[in-house]
């Protein structure tokens, strides 16, 4: 930028320049369009009005940092609260019905079902997804809720009970309770015996290598495991004992995992939601989980 004298007149246009030059380029000193200028002034006035009307300037008060609140008292947190309130109010009628009607009756009503699935999906994302996954696909130790395998039953009533009282949730007296013992750690079975039982469990789904070990394992299974898992290994939903003959394994179905399960026991926990979510939400969650594909 060179300081050429001001009021220099451009030859081509006959217009004064601003007197500045950038790499040989000079700026003509034409007037700004009036509409532009007035819009600019209006914006300046507007900004002053805005500072007064809306929350604007931070300042230090005796209670620490705060800000000018603006005369209309606009607050985005309030807006969110109000909007959420409006949504809740909008479906208050339906949620009321969902809370009081029998689950089967709700399911039979297309509108209520639609609301249930939407509300259930939202509640699932907020409360259940951390363990069961956002798609309810589960993971190691956390059941997949999409499949047709249920430890404690997959009817609407079963799911509702599990949701309300949880599993092995000490704070709830009616929680679903049962323990898979740690046969190895507690010294009930030797390592060899555990290996034999594992062989038998593999045999249940036709995967045993060593028929002799499986036979020995069957005997131990008959003594130790039948109470819960049943003579044929089909499990028992009353006791939350898994079916050992199917293709779905909560803690893995290969030999090492089975040995690990038998040695150290398995006692997954699910919280009771009874006191924490309202009746309507639990019903909606029940219908949602039921709808994922495994509902009975």
């Amino acid at each position: 930028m060179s300081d050429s004298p001001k009021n220099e007149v451009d030859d081509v246009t006959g217009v004064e320049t601003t007197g500045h030059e950038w790499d040989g380029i000079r700026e003509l000193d034409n007037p700004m369009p009036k509409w532009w200028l007035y819009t600019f002034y209006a914006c300046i006035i507007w900004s002053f009005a805005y500072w007064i009307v809306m929350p604007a300037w931070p300042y230090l008060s005796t209670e620490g940092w705060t800000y000018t609140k603006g005369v209309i008292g606009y607050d985005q947190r309030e807006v969110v609260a109000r909007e959420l309130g409006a949504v809740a109010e909008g479906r208050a009628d339906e949620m009321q019905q969902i809370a009081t009607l029998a689950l089967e009756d709700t399911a039979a009503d297309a509108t209520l079902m639609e609301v249930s699935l939407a509300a259930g999906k939202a509640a699932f994302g907020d409360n259940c997804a951390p363990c069961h996954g956002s798609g309810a696909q589960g993971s190691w130790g956390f059941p997949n809720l999409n499949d047709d395998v249920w430890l404690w039953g997959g009817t609407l009533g079963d799911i509702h009970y599990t949701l309300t009282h949880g599993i092995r949730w000490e704070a709830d007296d009616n929680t679903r309770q049962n323990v898979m013992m740690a046969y190895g750690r507690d010294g009930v079975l030797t390592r060899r015996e555990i290996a034999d039982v594992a062989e038998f469990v593999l045999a249940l789904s036709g995967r045993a290598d060593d028929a002799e070990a499986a036979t020995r394992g069957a005997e131990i299974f008959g003594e130790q495991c039948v109470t819960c898992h049943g003579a044929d290994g089909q499990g028992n939903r009353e006791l939350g004992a898994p079916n050992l003959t199917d293709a779905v394994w909560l803690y893995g179905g290969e030999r090492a995992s089975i040995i690990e399960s038998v040695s150290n026991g398995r006692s997954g926990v699910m919280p009771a939601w009874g006191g924490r979510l309202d009746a309507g939400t639990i019903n909606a969650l029940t219908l949602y989980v039921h709808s994922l594909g495994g509902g009975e």
Partner: protein
Amino acid sequence: MADSASSLERLAAEAAGNVSAAANPHGLDGERYTAVNAEKNRSLYISRVKIYPKLVGGTFRRLKWVIMALTLTIYYVTPWLRWDRGAGLPDQAVLLDFPSRRFYFFFLEIWPQEFYYITGLLILASLTLFLVTSLAGRVWCGYTCPQTVWTDLFIHVERFFEGDRSARIRLDRSPWSAGKLARKAAKHLVWILIALATGGAWVFYFADAPTLAVELARFDAPPIAYISIAIFASTTYLLGGLAREQVCIYMCPWPRIQGAMFDEESLLVSYKEDRGEQRGPHKKGTSWEGRGDCIDCGQCVAVCPMGIDIRDGMQLECIQCALCIDACDAIMDRVERPRGLIAYDTLRNQERRQAGEPQRLNLLRPRTLVYMAALAIVGLIMLVALINRSTLELNVLHDRNPLFVTLADGSIRNGYELKIVNKEHAERVFRIDVEGLEGAVLSRPALAGEEGSTVVVGVDTLRMARFFVILPAGRLDGLRDGEGMLTFVATDLATGQKVERESSFRGPVK
């Protein structure tokens, strides 16, 4: 530079002179008729000088009346046209129904995913604009642009209350009086009424017109209707009544762009300099030898709504309204010279005349041919798309979370969201089948409300339905790298019409 007072004086002198200019060609001063927007008069620092366009009669003025009547009628009447689409659907011929995401245009009904029809229409419109501009200049600006039509209307209202050019100039220069106030007030009142009617008609395109009209009158229409009317009414009043030619000169981008469409063969409203010069006042009975046909009467300047002098040559400000043609033709009749001193003319013809060659029109030149070809191609594509527009669509979304589910018996299940679009104005029942994956079985979630594989889709709606496909454990070798393809088929049970959509099936990677 002329300040506004002295330019007013000049305009007044000019107006007074105009009355008898042809008969009494006084004043040899070439500067006598100065257009306010002529380049030499328009410094960037001066305020706008008001333009008082004079009423003119003639072919183009008549044409403009017809076009004004036509375009205004189309604008105001269209929302009231009815078109029967059957029960449950709007019967308004042209309706932009935002709440239910539909655009109705007579027989056409456009869904949001078909917005490319609108894109196509816009492309056709702009190509037509390009073609017309390259053939005959700013036809759009001069005759049909809403800015031109409404400004023209507003100027006529002004003329009705305040009189023609010289009367208006006198009125503006006279001191305020009750009469002046009454005239001005009446003018603004009518302007505001027209503006309100303009904004009022606009909202009828977005809702059922008769219903909305009643609501508007009862003051219980949605606020957005009133807000839109207010915005459109104030912009109409502002742009058509007050800003007028400034919109074309300073705000509109088109005058800048259209320069790229003209060429030397385009027919443009021009002053035939070769015939008009040497201009000068002419006394009746004197010879036309050795001089041009322009008698410098200033009529072309007086009628120009843009405040320019066509004799200065092609100018950005000229909207090619052709009113100066009418003005000059009338003068030529009076001085008994041939019409067409100002006329639709081409630059090349001007050159040809000067070179003594015959004039000719060259309408088919590469530029126009390219525009025509593009128009034809886009039009054809649109036509084919329209003819093949299907009233049935099937979309399949494969569940991604989880991708697949292993069931107790080792079979694999995938979930799908089917979206069936029924654009017909009748309810339809579809049967869903899967093909292409050996052993795959279709099922639906428990408590889905619908049994089996039939799906009912209501009138003109989209229906979502969840389906499961189960591949038995023994069939898993049908998958390659844990993936197989299958096809969903929706069959209309009444007509047998089918629509297919391919999707994938996922299983564990072995």
